[in-house]
């Protein structure tokens, strides 16, 4: 296993590598609770390259969400820095889109109204975005539901709206915290294929949090395996399976090997 100190020395200086989009430099996060401090992350160093699909996997409580929130600029680290193109992340950026485990739709807005919410917040003219929004809503398969309200949609459809809401603004980086975790197996698979197709064709850099190993390997170029108490990176698995990937990719013996490799990295700690 590589020494983290050594890795730090080898890590490119800010801006030196033109392909690296996100870097975390020895990030630690300690939550102070009444019962005492909780170390959610300790000395996390990861690099995400342009166009890569990177998954964070690990058991519940290992700090995946915490790390993602720090990268999103929603949570300050206790020490270390997260960098976007070599610059410290101190607040959310419009270059990054965020997706939650639930769709987080506003029930008084239609599908279109929800997708146009960021435009209003950004102070853009909603008319200028409307055509784009409609085409994205169509692309996620909700053409007939543009004027529907969230409560008229299934969970999977609501999550599609959330995807459309983030994709409409063409983020360079898409941060997703178990975005399909609340969906059933079939819907989740369909959503994963769709997500992969869209993000690949748009060249979007993705960070995807999940505790589903199969899903992580199937989607990713890199799987970052995290372990709990304190949360840290126990290893990174490079997924070299060719793209485009289809369901048949799962039959590939290399696929099974990769899953085994990830499981192995996890297994030593659980």
């Amino acid at each position, binding site marked *: 296993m590589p020494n983290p100190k050594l890795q730090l020395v080898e890590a490119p200086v800010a801006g030196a590598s033109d392909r690296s989009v996100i870097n975390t430099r020895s990030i630690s996060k300690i939550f102070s609770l009444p019962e005492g401090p909780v170390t959610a992350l300790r000395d996390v160093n990861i690099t995400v390259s342009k166009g890569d699909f990177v998954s964070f996997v690990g058991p519940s409580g290992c700090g995946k969400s915490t790390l993602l929130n720090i990268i999103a600029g929603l949570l300050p680290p206790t020490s270390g820095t997260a960098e976007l193109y070599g610059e410290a992340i101190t607040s*959310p950026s419009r270059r990054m889109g965020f997706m*939650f485990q639930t769709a*987080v739709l*506003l029930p008084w807005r239609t599908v279109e109204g929800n997708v146009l*919410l960021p435009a209003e*917040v950004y102070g853009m003219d909603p008319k200028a975005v409307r055509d784009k929004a409609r085409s994205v809503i169509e692309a996620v398969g909700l053409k007939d539901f543009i004027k529907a309200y969230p409560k008229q949609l299934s969970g999977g459809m609501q999550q599609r709206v959330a995807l459309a809401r983030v994709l409409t603004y063409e983020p360079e980086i898409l941060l997703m915290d178990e975005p399909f975790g609340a969906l059933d197996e079939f819907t989740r698979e369909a959503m994963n294929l769709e997500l992969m197709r869209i993000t690949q064709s748009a060249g979007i850099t993705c960070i995807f949090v999940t505790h589903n190993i199969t899903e992580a390997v199937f989607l990713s170029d890199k799987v970052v395996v995290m372990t709990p108490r304190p949360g840290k990176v126990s290893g990174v698995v490079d997924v070299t399976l060719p793209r485009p990937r289809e369901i048949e990719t799962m039959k590939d013996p290399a696929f099974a090997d990769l899953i085994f490799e990830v499981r192995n990295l996890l297994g030593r700690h659980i």
Partner: protein
Amino acid sequence: MKHVDQWTDNTTQRRQDWYFRLGAIGIGIAILALWEVLPLTGLVNPIILPPFSKVAVALFTLMQQPFFPGHLAVTFNEIIIGFIIGTLLGLGIGIALAVWPSAKRLAYPFVVGFQAIPKIVFAPLFIAWFGFGQTSKIVMAVVIAFFPVLINTMVGLESVPSDARKLMRSLKATPLQIFWKVSFLHALPIIFAGVQAAFTFAVIGAIVGEFVGSQEGLGYLLNLYNFQLRIDRAFAVIVILATIGAAGFFLLEWADRKFIFWRERS
């Protein structure tokens, strides 16, 4: 298929609604019949409880008296003004306390303490302070009515899901944008329930104020007829007050359904 299912669901639902409506009407008729029959049989003294038909006649004649519209207008004014001021006050203070945490921590003990007081005890005081006119009644209505709005505004604004706030933060929304686009609308169904309660309370406030000291208004009439033992007329006034209360309540209920269409209804 799906549409057909939904349709049958709706019709059974509607049919059930009608059964319940008919049931309620039936119970209402039964109560009126009992009201009519009991005093006639002598089981209840007709002076204490005049039969329904006498009350209906009293109601009819009362409404034709030249002095009646004036009294109605006075009470109606007190209720509406008290309700509006109370609602705005509750909304304003509720929002201030919810968005400004230190204000909330400072004021909350007083809010809770004030809630524990039966506000009716202030009625004689308000008469002393604001006189026998409409002002003292409006103040009474405001003091009772603003409370449910205040509490519901605070509760509603505090129940905004953290994910929704987080979404807005990830969009770099300003606090004002978060408030108007998410928090306020999220809280609105809860706030509106408070507004509905406020109307009922405003009616109580105005009438209590009139009971304690007044020379006009429906509460004054009710008191007067009680003293004169004209119980049929007293009941007639009660019917009018009940109508005002119910009309306001159902009007607000209608507004709720129309404007807060996203409310979760069981």
